[in-house]
């Protein structure tokens, strides 16, 4: 097993394009994946989450906030392969991750593939604890 599982994703912006590079050592299946792959994501926020997502100031999202990141196979793809979802639950739901629930949902939004309060999702988002566990990408 190689890589540091606590290493955080690297976010860079160049010429209007934002790039997120996930470090090795995060996935439980990393040993059987040798090739690097590129995917694309578009992030959406519901009314409860919108203002804080667009704000530069770190703040705590209110319960009911929902953030969806579409996983797209190309920048021009019109349908999502998967949806990575964060739902802010009631206080005390997930004390170690700001009461967020992390879900992976099928691209058509009809089936929950996995849902978790800890694991890979929390580990990666833990680096953003100051901004309530949410990655605030620069908006190109």
């Amino acid at each position, binding site marked *: 097993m190689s890589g540091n599982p606590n290493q955080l994703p690297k976010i860079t912006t160049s010429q209007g394009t934002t790039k997120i590079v996930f*470090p090795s050592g995060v996935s439980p299946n990393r040993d059987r*994946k040798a090739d690097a*792959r590129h995917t694309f994501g578009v992030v959406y926020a519901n009314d409860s989450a919108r203002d804080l997502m667009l704000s530069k100031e770190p703040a705590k999202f209110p319960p009911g906030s929902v953030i969806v990141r579409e996983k*797209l196979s190309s920048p021009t793809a019109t349908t999502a392969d998967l*949806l990575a979802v964060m*739902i802010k639950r009631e206080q005390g739901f997930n004390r170690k991750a700001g009461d967020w629930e992390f879900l992976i949902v099928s691209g058509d939004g009809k089936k929950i593939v996995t*849902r978790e309060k800890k*694991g890979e999702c929390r580990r990666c988002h833990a680096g953003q604890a100051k901004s309530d566990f949410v990655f605030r990408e620069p908006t190109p």
Partner: protein
Amino acid sequence: MKKISLKGLTLLALLTTAGLVLADSNDMATLNQIAGYRQWTRVSKKPVEVTVSPVNIAATPADLPSPAD
């Protein structure tokens, strides 16, 4: 009181587990929370490139950890 056989209990446990898994993946209340998300505020105006080095969260459904986590 009538005794329940071990086989019966095992079958009941299996059916309960299968039912829970099915109910979890079809949690309509949660799915409804994200229905119509494309009408929400789009935070990233352009698609953000995500490079997945020999890693990743959610590369494909087969790559995902078990839902038990």
